[in-house]
């Protein structure tokens, strides 16, 4: 290859120009904090993802309207995880490398969060998620303490299951878990809590996904003559297992997480099969002022009640807590300094606040404690929160909430 003098000069000029670009970008940056809204718009999380993304946008707009946080305004880049780890990793790479986001908010399934968190750790930015897997609490996934969970861990779900099983007077529970971190987390959490109460689990099975039949698994459980079966399961396998169980003719009660025991399950099996199933879900901080603010925003964006999407309330809180931490860390603070303020603005002792503007004002007079829309939002040492739970019963094809459970 032969270069003319003109080409050489041109290429040198380009190189110099390219060298300037990042600096130019930085100088525009002073007043902007970029966040990635990485949500399950399609795939298994599809019923929740759109609402989550819209709430991130709405909350960011609200913070910006209140004058921004720590002197900066949010700029949101929205992406779809497709509820698949591969797609989520590609999207996260794009958010980090191309959009240069400084936090990623709103991953949903455990598989996705476990796949994305190494990337956010590598980039040194926080990941706020709604996943249940216990592995997300500790190293290596949360080795840098940059991961925050706005949903209950599967372990806490298990504890809620145990409380409900006790309240319902069951004596001989058995467990069935889908073989992944979330499924096993649920049933192990239940077993731990149940044995701590002095109870005994009569049988337990961990099963593989995508099998043509779960008859052998069921048989093992049924042979132990349990009075209730507690599951850590998903919709598809729950559908197959319940259908096979019903065809065995055995009478048994079920306690199933709400992401599996939902209206889709009723539709798939019909009211006879699902009669009496107890569906357990974490619930939002209903009745709080923060929830009312979120609910209004949700109604405006989606046209439905915010009660139907607990994850959208979590997404809403993600933006507000981040903004409050930025405000507390002061103008120009880097991500590490902001991260250090997370518990300071959300956990007890400070003045209770329920929205950003209120918190921003109260921060001038000392510490604050944001009480969120999704829960009272107090992070433990692992970055986990403890929401309330609700037990719903399926009767005549309708899922009705009957009581709340506080851990």
């Amino acid at each position: 290859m032969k270069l003319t003098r003109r080409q050489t000069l041109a290429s040198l000029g380009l190189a110099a120009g390219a060298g300037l670009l990042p600096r130019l970008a930085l100088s525009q940056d002073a007043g902007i904090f970029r966040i990635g809204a990485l949500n399950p718009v399609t795939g298994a999380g599809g019923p929740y993802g759109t609402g989550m993304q819209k709430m991130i946008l709405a909350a960011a707009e609200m913070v910006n309207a209140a004058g921004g946080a720590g002197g900066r305004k949010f700029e949101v880049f929205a992406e779809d995880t497709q509820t698949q780890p591969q797609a989520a990793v590609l999207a996260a790479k794009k958010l980090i490398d191309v959009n240069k986001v400084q936090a990623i908010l709103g991953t949903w399934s455990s598989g996705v969060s476990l796949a994305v968190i190494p990337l956010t750790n590598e980039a040194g930015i926080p990941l706020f998620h709604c996943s249940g897997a216990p592995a997300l609490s500790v190293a290596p996934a949360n080795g840098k303490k940059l991961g925050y969970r706005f949903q209950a861990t599967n372990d806490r779900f298990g504890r809620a299951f145990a409380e409900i099983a006790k309240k319902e007077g069951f004596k001989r529970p058995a467990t069935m878990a889908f073989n992944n971190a979330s499924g096993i987390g649920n049933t192990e959490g239940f077993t731990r809590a149940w044995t701590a109460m002095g109870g005994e689990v009569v049988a337990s099975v961990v099963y593989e996904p995508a099998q043509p039949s779960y008859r052998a698994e069921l048989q093992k459980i049924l042979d132990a003559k349990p009075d209730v079966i507690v599951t850590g399961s998903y919709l598809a396998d729950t559908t197959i297992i319940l259908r096979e169980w019903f065809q065995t003719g055995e009478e048994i009660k079920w306690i199933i997480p709400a992401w599996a025991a939902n209206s889709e399950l009723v539709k798939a099996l019909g009211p006879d099969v699902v009669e009496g199933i107890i569906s357990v879900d974490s619930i939002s901080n209903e009745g709080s002022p923060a929830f009312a603010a979120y609910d209004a925003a949700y109604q405006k964006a989606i046209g439905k009640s915010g009660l139907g999407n607990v994850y959208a309330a979590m997404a809403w809180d993600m933006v507000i807590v981040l903004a409050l931490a930025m405000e507390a860390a002061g103008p120009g603070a880097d991500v590490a300094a902001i991260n250090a303020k997370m518990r300071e603005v959300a956990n007890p002792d400070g003045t209770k606040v329920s929205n950003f503007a209120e918190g921003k004002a109260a921060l001038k007079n000392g510490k604050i404690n944001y009480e969120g829309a999704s829960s009272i939002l107090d992070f433990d040492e692992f970055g986990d929160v403890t929401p309330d739970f609700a037990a719903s019963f399926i009767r005549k094809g309708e899922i009705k909430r009957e009581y709340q459970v506080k851990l």
Partner: protein
Amino acid sequence: MTSFVELLLSGITSGLIIGLAGLSVTLVFGIARFSNAATGDTMTLGAYGALMGTSLTGSLLAGGLIGLVAGALSAILAYLLVFRPLQNRSPISSLLASIGVAFFIRAVLGLVFGHDQMVFQMDLVRPFRLLGVRIQPNDLKFAGVAILTLALVFVVLHLTPIGRRMRAVADNPLLARVSGIAPRAVMFTLWAIAGAVAAVAGILLGMKTVVSPESGWDMLLPAFAAAVLGGIGHPVGAVLAGVIIGVAQELATPFVGFTYKIAISFLVLLLVLLVRPRGLFGKIEGVR
């Protein structure tokens, strides 16, 4: 003991579905000479076809027939557009192309029907007891359909002129050609049968479990295992091997743990091939 018999029955039903899928793989292998990785997704397509058919006609039987036709048509289409242009290349080209066809079918199904599960609305019935053993009427129906399908395939293969020609091509393509057997009719029939058999397997699987774009792909490994175990290219072998795999999985897992369910089928495969490398029914010259 009764629970042992119940598991055996359940294993036979699952095994017949695996066997049907294995039959589709082995038929294509015997005549078109490559492993068709699109078999699993043809199953899924058949199941969706049957779902659509059922909601259109209101009858499970008519819906099933529509699904079967959909499976056959899609296989013929794949042959015309993809496998025929590749038939003079190495079998690896066709194998790779079939993986592409599999992805294509799955993506189209995902696009059209979404990724949420769909189910056949069937009456769930409580079992009746025979000598203390619980027998589920739906299982009997599934097994009946599977056996009927197998019988039809064997009638076509062994009692019709086109079946004889297919077997001739499977035996020795060159000799068949010089004997004046036109390959075109043979290939069309082969793909129609392979597609329809896969569709039946997919429909039965869908009725037993749930239908989602990935459901057939998940069955591909056991189907391949059945085809290999039965002696590649041998229809009876594939079906029998499917049943063996199904039964082995159901019976062995209570003892070794359910996490190893999939491993069991491959352990059986391994053991048989160690003792009998050509598979249960394979001919020695059939081993390449």
